[in-house]
């Protein structure tokens, strides 16, 4: 018999086959510039982009001052405002007409108008007014500016009232837990991590599997002694590694560049991330069973996975303020649960005792996706 397959040590044999498969998969990835960019450029670009550019905080907002009072009190307030990092006094205005002009030029986002004889009124009537005019073409920024100004004014007022006892006073003592400085980057790091893992795991695997279908090698692999599940496992395996690597990069950048806290257990964070990666991978396999071309796979991944992750997972828009049907829909997105878990571990430092419910949901979803893709695969082979 010329037939040469040796029957020695079958297990060793299987490992060798598997290694060869993985090696080939890495060749595909490292020889394709597009894959390389998505795998390694994208995570870093996205996290820096979200971290620096897309933020809800305000910093060095240009404002204008129209000081009709020009007395000691108004000067003190202006000093306080310019001393904060939030505002930058760009312009001093001397008449009403210039207020609108400066807005129209787009140079300033807000104008503070001090009423005449501010100091006098304050001592005489115990009351003085400062008008805050904002450019509400960006509603979020406008509200934030008003809030920040109010806080600064309150502080000044408190200083003034230091020595006086108010007869009745109810004060809201606020404390912002877990993110006292309200840094939006704390929100974005978990979100970006979720997006990247979804992208790498689901989109890249679905594309790489359909690619084999398109060029016809999938057929060759299925005719070979490799079992279908071995083929899929071999395709998926490299992406588990790359996803874990990406998660690590994001956490490290978040930690060192944006001072993202990491309160909870690293181990739990790792485990939950692997769980999410597996669920995303099984989604990728599922997509590859229903699409025959790389383009279809990419479109389904982008529209069906990425968009919901960005819009409905609570990453950018809070789920609580969505209409009811969308709230329900957000529950079936794995990313929703993963983001809750991430925020819990990273910001609150809670353990599995608080996150078991979310973890179970993720496990359940993963099993469901795997079962569905196995079923789809079988139908294809029938």
């Amino acid at each position, binding site marked *: 018999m*010329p*037939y*040469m*397959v*040796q029957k020695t040590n079958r297990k060793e*044999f299987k490992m*060798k*086959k598997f290694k*060869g*498969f993985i*090696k*080939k998969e890495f*060749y*595909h990835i490292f*020889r*394709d510039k597009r894959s390389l960019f998505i795998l390694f450029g994208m995570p870093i670009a996205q996290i820096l982009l979200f971290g620096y550019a897309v933020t809800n905080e305000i910093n060095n907002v240009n404002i204008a001052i129209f000081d009709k009072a020009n007395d000691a009190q108004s000067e003190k307030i202006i000093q306080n405002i310019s001393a904060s990092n939030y505002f930058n006094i760009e312009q001093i205005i001397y008449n009403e007409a210039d207020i609108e002009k400066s807005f129209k030029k787009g140079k300033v986002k807000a104008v503070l108008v001090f009423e005449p004889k501010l100091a006098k009124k304050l001592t005489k009537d115990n009351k003085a007014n400062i008008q805050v005019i904002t450019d509400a073409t960006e509603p979020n920024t406008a509200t934030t500016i008003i809030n920040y100004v109010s806080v600064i004014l309150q502080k000044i007022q408190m200083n003034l009232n230091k020595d006086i006892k108010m007869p009745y006073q109810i004060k809201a003592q606020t404390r912002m837990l877990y993110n006292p400085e309200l840094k939006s980057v704390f929100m974005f790091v978990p979100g970006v991590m979720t997006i990247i893992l979804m992208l790498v795991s689901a989109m890249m695997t679905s594309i790489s599997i359909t690619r084999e279908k398109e*060029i*016809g*090698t999938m*057929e*060759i*692999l*299925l*005719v*070979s*002694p*490799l*079992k279908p599940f071995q083929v899929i496992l071999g395709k998926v395996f490299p992406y588990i590694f790359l996803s874990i690597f990406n998660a690590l990069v994001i956490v490290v950048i978040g930690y060192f560049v944006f001072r993202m806290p990491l309160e909870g257990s690293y181990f739990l964070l790792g485990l939950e991330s692997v769980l999410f990666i597996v669920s995303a991978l099984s989604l990728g396999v599922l997509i590859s069973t229903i699409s025959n071309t790389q383009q279809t796979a990419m479109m389904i991944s982008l529209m069906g996975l990425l968009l919901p992750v960005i819009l409905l997972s609570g990453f950018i828009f809070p789920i609580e303020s969505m209409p009811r049907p969308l709230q329900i829909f957000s529950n079936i997105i794995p990313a929703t649960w993963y983001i809750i878990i991430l925020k819990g571990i990273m910001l609150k430092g809670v353990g599995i005792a608080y996150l078991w419910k979310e973890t179970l949901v993720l496990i359940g979803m993963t099993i469901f996706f795997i079962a569905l893709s196995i079923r789809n695969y079988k139908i294809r*082979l*029938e």
Partner: protein
Amino acid sequence: MKDQNIIQVKNLTKKYGDFFAVNEISFHVKKGEIFGFLGANGAGKTTAMKMLIGISKPTYGEATVAGFDVFKNPEKIKKNIGYMSQKFALYDDLTVNENIIFFGGIYGLKRKIIKHKTKELLSYLGIEELGKTLVGSLPLGVKQKLAFSIALIHEPKIVFLDEPTGGVDPITRRQFWEMIYEKAHQGTTIFVTTHYMDEAEYCDRVSIMVTGKIEALDTPKKLKEIYKVDSMNEVFLKLARGE
């Protein structure tokens, strides 16, 4: 062992809903034979072949390939056959050597054997200097011969070729058939689908499928006698028109 039938098919059928893609076909292929499996597009030849190579389950019927049952032992069949698709599917972004190592590897060949085979194969194809070239940059004819050689790398008893000469020029086709002859002489059974009727003349025996059924099966010479024509092309046309 000499006259043993390496493929044996009886009433093999594949139904999709009410549609018979393959309708109770029966035939056998002898060891070392070049068996031409002809038919128009959509006649069911690809479906029939997919059942034989174990990637599609027959609805009913019987078939053994290389001595193994397609229902009970599809995995054993896979180890004993080679397959080359009409796309000459290889990995374009891998080099010639890497492709050989990969495909040899999934058939469980040892490293040493693969190394030896690579050398042999490259010199056989006359492309010794192309081992480190990406397959994507090879001319189609070379890629076709490489795909064929890789399909044979584990020395299967039977090799299934699905329209292996689509899109290549007549000279390359001729060279390719010479390779097929050579392998058949060495004892490999060749099961080939094609719709080039001149190629049918090269086969030892041909079967012609029309709408899911095998309408004719014999040597090209006999078929031409039966239908009283000069070429396989005319045989095919007569059958396709239902004469």
